[in-house]
């Protein structure tokens, strides 16, 4: 008899806990933000008891999925274009859009002395391949094109440029050594100890249009609102900076 009562109490308490506090959130996140977002979500889960399911992918694909009814509660894009579109189309919640991070572009090589602090290596051009993300698809690719154009090198580099579909693939091209150097995001090459392996040129932000990463609410619920608020508070903002992003 005792055993049965205990069992019933256990089941009841389990039921109550799922009903009251924790909700399950589905969040679409741009791949480049995967590392930070996982860390932030973990903190958020600890504090609120909500469960966050992160779905990483390219912003273009997420956009198409959300347009066709994908069940995400919130969307962290790699740009501001897709969130604006979703807002205009009435799919995202009006007024929920905000900038959560600013991307920093670097020219990087795993080789210790290939890239100098002013990026003169581009003029010398002693390399076979320069990797960039596809400017048509990826905000970091667009920025890379602007940097090359600013230095009058876009045309000259055409025979050396290889394109990744996204910034993650661009990083793989360089990391594997198939391309000697490439334009990647600072967050990719920055280790958690704060150092950078290899050599890099931190590109001055005046040379390219800001890489604005925006988020929007897709569904209106308290848990999703809480997450968006959490990201804009100090501890999360510090983590975002620590991972190599700028803040608005």
């Amino acid at each position: 008899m005792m055993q049965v009562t205990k069992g019933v109490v256990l089941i009841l308490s389990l039921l109550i806990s799922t009903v009251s506090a924790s909700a399950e959130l589905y969040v679409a996140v741009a791949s480049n933000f995967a590392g930070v977002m996982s860390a932030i979500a973990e903190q958020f889960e600890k504090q609120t008891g909500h469960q966050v399911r992160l779905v990483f992918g390219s912003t273009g694909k997420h956009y198409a999925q959300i347009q066709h009814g994908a069940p995400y509660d919130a969307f962290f894009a790699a740009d501001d274009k897709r969130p604006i579109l979703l807002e205009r189309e009435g799919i995202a919640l009006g007024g929920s859009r905000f900038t959560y991070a600013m991307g920093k572009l670097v020219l990087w090589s795993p080789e210790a002395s290939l890239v100098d602090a002013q990026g003169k290596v581009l003029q010398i051009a002693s390399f076979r391949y320069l990797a960039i993300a596809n400017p048509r698809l990826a905000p970091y690719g667009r920025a890379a094109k602007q940097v090359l154009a600013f230095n009058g090198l876009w045309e000259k580099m055409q025979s050396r440029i290889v394109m990744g579909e996204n910034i993650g693939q661009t990083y793989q091209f360089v990391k594997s050594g198939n391309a000697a150097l490439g334009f990647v995001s600072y967050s990719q090459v920055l280790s958690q100890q704060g150092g950078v392996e290899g050599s890099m040129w931190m590109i001055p932000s005046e040379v390219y249009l800001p890489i604005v990463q925006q988020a929007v609410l897709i569904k209106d619920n308290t848990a999703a609102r809480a997450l968006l608020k959490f990201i804009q508070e100090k501890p999360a903002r510090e983590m975002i900076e620590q991972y190599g992003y700028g803040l608005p």
Partner: protein
Amino acid sequence: MLLTEADLAALWVTLKLAGVVTAILLLLGTPLAWWLARSQMRYKFLIEAVVALPLVLPPTVLGFYLLIMLGPHGPVGGLMQMFGGQPLAFTFTGLVIGSVFYSLPFVVQPLQDAFTSVGGRLLETAATLGASPLDRFFTIAVPLAAPGFLTATVLGFAHTVGEFGVVLMIGGNIPGKTQVLSIAIYDHVETLEYGRAHLLSGGLLLMSFLLLVAVYGFNRRIKVAGL
């Protein structure tokens, strides 16, 4: 709506890639399939498993390993560099090598099946009549395995046309050199150019369907004719 210059270039690279890869696979795959069909070796199944690997592996796995192997720190890329060769990633040759692995089972397996069904009796009879092994192969096995060759050619070609993961990993998306149709379609979808994506996707769908209809129709006629 007509194809743009970039889409046409991607179409050309795709057809050229599929053509070259199919030709190489028929050359390499025929002796391999013949050996697999005829050999009594105990450990033959190991080779069969290796040949079938691309059927079950995600192409990204193959692409990932190729990217690492062909890179300057990888075994293949390192050797190439030692002998003053050019790196293979981001080149058409690199794509050909990747695709040969990727489409291997689609050529070898139909050929192996065809050679197996030719049967040993006929070949033995020919041998007793004094036909040399090469003679037997070209005058008996090859003609009897004709439907197998057709299936192998078409599947190898069509499967290479439909390749995505390998090219994505080692292609580098260079227009006119390594940008293929499937990547162009992917890019159009990503940039919300759904019209152009539809045009290419529809075209590819139709072409693949017609190719398969041709093969199955032809193979059926051969069976009906009792050849």
